């Protein structure tokens, strides 16, 4: 038997900052846009971010992540975007055909333009005991604590001193957990100085140049031993949770599946679909934006989403070339600004090498 088929002008997969901005931008040009997301709430990972965001006013800076999610959701409703939550895209095929699962079954949706804005997934870090309950991604801990009000543990060891590790550590403290230490194999803190300072201010010790040796426990983590890189001495922490904040990888499986050429960038987290500066992939009608196009900040994801939305609207004929170029110039300017500073410049160079790959 055949599955029900629906034809639409444009479909966006993923309802995070990139997907919502792509949808809003395209819908404002008059395009018919549907957004699909497997979750029941819009906003992607923004909904579990309770810290104030960096960036400028255009990116909701100074507001908390979940507040930005709410604003984007209202904006997309106002723009006439059809939001289909609880709809999981299982496959994407050449020609813009998608296999989608909803509560009742599976259907096929064909769109002339598809934006893949599926975000990222947390990287693993294998050591003896990493499979014990209580060892989890820092994002998983954040989901538990900020969305569901459940602590991953009372005594948490954070592995990774990048922004995610620092921010989640602070949020665990806010919820009443102890962070027994933040450990990083590197000798320096990778995250922003202001994030480091506010965690340090709460008395959380840093163990730089250290790595996890193993976690032990019967039904879950009870203790974790760590060692200084190249050193002989070991330390053992009593801990009931270990959070891994060792980086994110672009999650662009749908793009890979439909034939997009994948390129590698260590700086941007791994393999991502090749794309140009306008967020077009090498497959006609397929665009990519946000962390799925290389892991960066949420503000960058929003601008990339806008860019993908403009390119799609242009290709669909909803927007003239000249008009699209003018709007894109503005987005380019914001992207350039956001990719300034020592952190941003490394991303900008990596992004340029992806465009040229």
């Amino acid at each position, binding site marked *: 038997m*055949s599955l029900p088929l629906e034809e639409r002008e444009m479909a966006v997969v993923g309802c995070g900052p990139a997907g919502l901005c792509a949808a809003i931008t395209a819908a404002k040009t008059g395009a018919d846009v549907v957004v699909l997301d497997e979750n029941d709430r819009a906003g992607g990972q923004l909904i579990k971010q309770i810290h104030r965001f960096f960036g400028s006013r255009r990116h909701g*800076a*100074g507001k908390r992540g979940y507040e930005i999610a709410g604003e984007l959701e209202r904006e997309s409703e106002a723009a006439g975007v059809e939001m289909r939550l609880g709809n999981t895209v299982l496959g994407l095929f050449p020609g813009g055909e998608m296999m989608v*699962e909803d509560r009742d079954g599976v259907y096929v949706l064909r769109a002339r333009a598809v934006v893949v804005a599926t975000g990222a997934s*947390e990287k693993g870090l294998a050591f003896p005991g990493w499979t014990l309950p209580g060892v989890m991604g820092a994002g998983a801990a954040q989901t538990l604590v900020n969305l569901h009000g459940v602590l991953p543990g009372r005594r948490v060891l954070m592995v990774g001193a990048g922004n995610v590790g620092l921010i989640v550590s602070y949020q665990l403290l806010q919820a009443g957990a102890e962070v027994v230490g933040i450990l990083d194999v590197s000798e320096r803190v990778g995250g922003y100085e202001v994030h480091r300072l*506010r965690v*340090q201010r709460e008395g959380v010790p840093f163990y730089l140049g250290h790595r996890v040796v193993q976690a032990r426990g019967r039904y879950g983590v009870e203790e974790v031993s760590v060692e200084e890189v190249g050193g002989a001495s070991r330390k053992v922490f009593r801990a009931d949770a270990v959070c891994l904040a060792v980086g994110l*990888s672009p999650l662009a499986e749908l793009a890979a599946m439909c034939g997009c050429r994948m390129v590698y960038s260590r700086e941007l987290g791994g393999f991502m679909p090749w794309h140009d500066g306008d967020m077009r992939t090498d497959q006609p009608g397929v665009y990519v934006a946000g962390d799925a196009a290389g892991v960066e900040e949420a503000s960058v994801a929003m601008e990339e989403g806008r860019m993908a939305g403009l390119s799609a609207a242009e290709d669909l004929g909803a927007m003239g070339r000249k008009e699209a170029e003018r709007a894109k110039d503005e987005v380019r300017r914001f992207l350039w600004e956001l990719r300034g500073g020592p952190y*941003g410049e490394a991303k900008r160079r990596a992004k340029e090498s992806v465009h040229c790959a």
Partner: protein
Amino acid sequence: MRVSGRKEGGETRVDPWSQAWERAAAGAVAVVDCGERIPCNPCEEACTRGAIEVGEDICAPPRFDPGLCDGCGRCVAMCPGMAVFLLDRSVGNGRARVTVPYEMGEEMRAGREVWAMDGEGKPLGKARVVGAKKRGGRAGTTLVTVEVDEGWALKVRGVRDRLITLEAPLEAEAEPLKEYPLCRCEEVSGPRVGEVAAEFASLRSLRRFSRVGLGYCQGRFCQDMLRERLARAREMEEGEVGTFRVRPPVRPVKLGKLGGEDA
């Protein structure tokens, strides 16, 4: 181990606390303790008097003019890095007031005795809260003002209702390591993958041989580690090792549902 401040490009920035010292004799003034080039400008937006300037380059560290600041504290509540404070030495008698942004669980209110903490989370001593107000509604940030000995004023970075002593880790001898899976789903041994890695030129061939990445998560959590090990063993670039081939469905689905059977 604790880390010390980072200097950028050999440039030493003006200590914002000392900069505010003179002006603070006349009343509350902001201390903008932010010197890193990150894309951020809410402090500039928050200030109604033009005392904080970031400018066109959103990554530029804020420039602050203490002469224009009236100590309103809006920037303290807005800064995403919680890096703006207020210093007020107008109380005299060798006392000073420091205002810090506060987002921890314990309620702060005027009259309460708390601990004043330094930038490393070490207690400086007890201090009385002379003001605590939440700015920006339910999800706002509380501005907590404490009165302290003037000698501490440059060191206070936080407040705490009670002291928590973290249990220090125990020093220990090396212990025997347990076996562990690198691929969680298919339970493929990490050490074993290391042993055989040199024999495979791509992730895909290693997968066919060992079942790594063939399980429920489709290699999402082991793929990067496998790629690194393979690249190291073969002296290849990580990009050359490639990816697993992705096949639909990318999320688990009951076969009946795929076949169009009623859910």
